[in-house]
């Protein structure tokens, strides 16, 4: 640091860094940090958004703890987190492996597989809405055509099925993203390792478990955190596809917050849900981050 002392104060690295960060930091503070305490403040009121705010203390919070719909939404969020991590990540790895191996249609397939990730959530929502349509939908018509009418389900209307139908569409949307992530990581694995394994006569299976997966692991944990956070605050496709319905069967915390605030016009209660969503997401991410960081550290120690 001594070598920098001759610089005028405004050219010191700390100052420069802060200056370049300032614009982004300003908007981050305004749109991300500030709303957190403000939402908590609103959660203490009864307010319809345009009328008078009435202070009611912690009444909204008491209601939240007894609100069966909120707990159902939380449970749905947890289901979404688990299925997302268990399906999207392995599928992403599998597709990445497939597309980094050399075969004829590789480029074409790559383009096709990335397509869902390029579409907007609303377009994907409409698309799957028509696929799941009960009478004229692609899926049910297909089942009818192959003589499997007994497999026909009310994909978006049956409360027992709807959550899984929607999660399926969400998986479809996000697998390409993880595929790209893993493809980038796979490229970074040195070829020598594979050559050495080949010389040793290791099977493809063994190569995957002892070389590819361990070296991919940091990417896997990062992907898992992305998936966890993304699933906890997920909103768009549910909103377009099922609206959280029927009867809250596919409700998530974020859609529930939206409904309470902007459809029922209970801004106070909506803010309560929002703060709860934030707290749960924050705590879970912290725990997860801690857990994976320990693991990374251990791995580093061994090396």
């Amino acid at each position, binding site marked *: 640091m001594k070598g920098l002392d001759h610089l005028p104060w405004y050219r010191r690295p700390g100052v420069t860094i802060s200056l370049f960060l300032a614009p982004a930091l300003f908007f981050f503070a305004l749109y991300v940090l500030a709303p957190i305490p403000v939402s908590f403040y609103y959660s203490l009121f009864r307010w*319809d*958004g*345009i*009328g008078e705010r009435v202070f009611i203390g912690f009444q909204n919070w008491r209601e939240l703890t007894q609100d069966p719909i909120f707990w159902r939404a939380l449970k749905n969020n947890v289901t979404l987190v688990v299925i997302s991590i268990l399906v999207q990540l392995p599928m992403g790895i599998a597709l990445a492996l497939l597309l980094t191996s050399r075969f004829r249609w590789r480029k074409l397939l790559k383009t096709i597989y990335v397509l869902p990730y390029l579409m907007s959530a609303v377009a994907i929502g409409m698309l799957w*809405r028509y696929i*799941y*349509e*009960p*009478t*004229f939908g692609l899926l049910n018509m297909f089942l009818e055509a192959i003589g499997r009418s007994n497999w*026909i389900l*009310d*994909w*978006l*209307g*049956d*409360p027992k099925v*709807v959550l899984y139908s929607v999660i399926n569409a969400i998986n479809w949307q996000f697998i390409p993203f993880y595929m790209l992530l893993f493809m980038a990581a796979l490229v970074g694995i040195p070829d020598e390792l594979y050559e050495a394994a080949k010389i040793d006569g290791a099977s493809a299976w063994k190569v995957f478990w002892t070389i590819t997966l361990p070296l991919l692991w940091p990417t896997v944990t990062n992907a898992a955190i992305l998936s966890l956070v993304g699933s906890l605050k997920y909103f768009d496709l549910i909103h377009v596809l*099922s*609206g959280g*319905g*029927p*009867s*809250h069967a596919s409700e998530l915390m974020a859609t529930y917050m939206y409904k309470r605030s*902007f*459809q*029922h*016009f*209970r*801004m106070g209660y909506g803010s309560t849900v929002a703060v709860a969503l934030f707290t749960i997401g924050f705590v879970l991410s912290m725990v997860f981050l801690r857990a994976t960081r320990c693991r990374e550290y251990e791995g580093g120690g061994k090396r």
Partner: protein
Amino acid sequence: MLKRATMCLFVISLLLGMSLGVYAQDINLTLWHIHTNVGAAQNTIQDAIRRFETDYPNVKIEEVQIINDEYKTKLMIAMGANDEPDIFMSWGGGPLETYISAGKVWDMTDALVEEGIYDNFLPVALDLGSVGDRVYGVPITNMVAALVFYRTDIFENLNLDIPTTYTELLEVMAVLNDNNITPFALANANKWTGSMYYMYLADRIGGPEAFYKAMMRTDGGSFASEAFIKAGEYLQELVKNNAFPRGFQSMDEDLAQSRNLLYTDRAAMYLMGSWAWGTIKAENESLLEKLDFFVFPGVDGGLGDPSNLVGTPGDNYFSVAQKCEHKEYAIKFLGYLSDENAVEMLIANGHIPPFGEDIGSKIDDPMMKKLYQAVSGSDAVQLWYDQSLPPELAQVHLDTTQALFGLEMTPEEAAQTMEEAARRYHGEN
């Protein structure tokens, strides 16, 4: 020096240019409504805009169409952010009163009288846009009642008669189901669509008083009373007897998923606001020959008169925002929306205007005449629950009704939930 002079000149000319720009700028009025599909309302509104802009070339009406289910949210958020449009649409009743009590809506009573358009509107329709005798919204689109539209050809082929009682309705449904035809085309993701069945059943069982007392919290009225529980039971009986198509809970009325079943001979009946006549006319005009309607059947032993209707005397109410800077033009535009041209335009497109003189004699089409008589002839028209109730309770009604359709709540639970929400809202416990 020269550099500075040019700079000064540049700045001055820039300022001048800007101020000139302000003077030359047209007056802009934003208008929000829900008519995203071609049809009576959209045609009439756009025609009025064209005529108005021709007569007042300095005024531009900026029309924004927002799909129905998103509309209320957008409007409320815009109002919360003090960014409401100059002219906006609502359905009168409870939600409009929320905006009025927040001081967002202009009291246009005197301006209407001055412009000489106050008397355009039918008094019964004007009521719903008023608080006391002050008018905040004028009815623009349609006199509406929910009616059961049905496919006459299907009824004829199967030798079915129009059901006049609930029991007869169950019989008709059985025959239709035996012939693989869904009795009712219903898309209930929107919730207000299924609410029509519930409202009619509650009316037929308990009469209009049941709802009125429960809503006004008078005479021991309660949403957990016999009429509402029974309505839930009858509703679930309809569901269990396959009254509705597969997947109806996830189908979207705004995407015509209900009417598609009617168009493809898969469903025979369609309980919907009478605007459906205009909608079908725009979507599938040839079907009108095979379409007729009847009033929702009565319930044996019920207190309600089976000729009572559920609906709205004006449908869409147009209001002017308090903060609108050019109210004098806004009110003139409302005149264009409710003049003789608009009357003709609405009738030609299958709507019954809630304004204008002697509407009955202006309707030539026999089916439209029949619609007019049905809608204007009833003594008691129950306004949609979700427009009578304050928005918060309206949502509870819609949610519990959808849960009833899904057999996820018992009628008692649904009624109890609604009553508890009403008590909480009115601070009764």
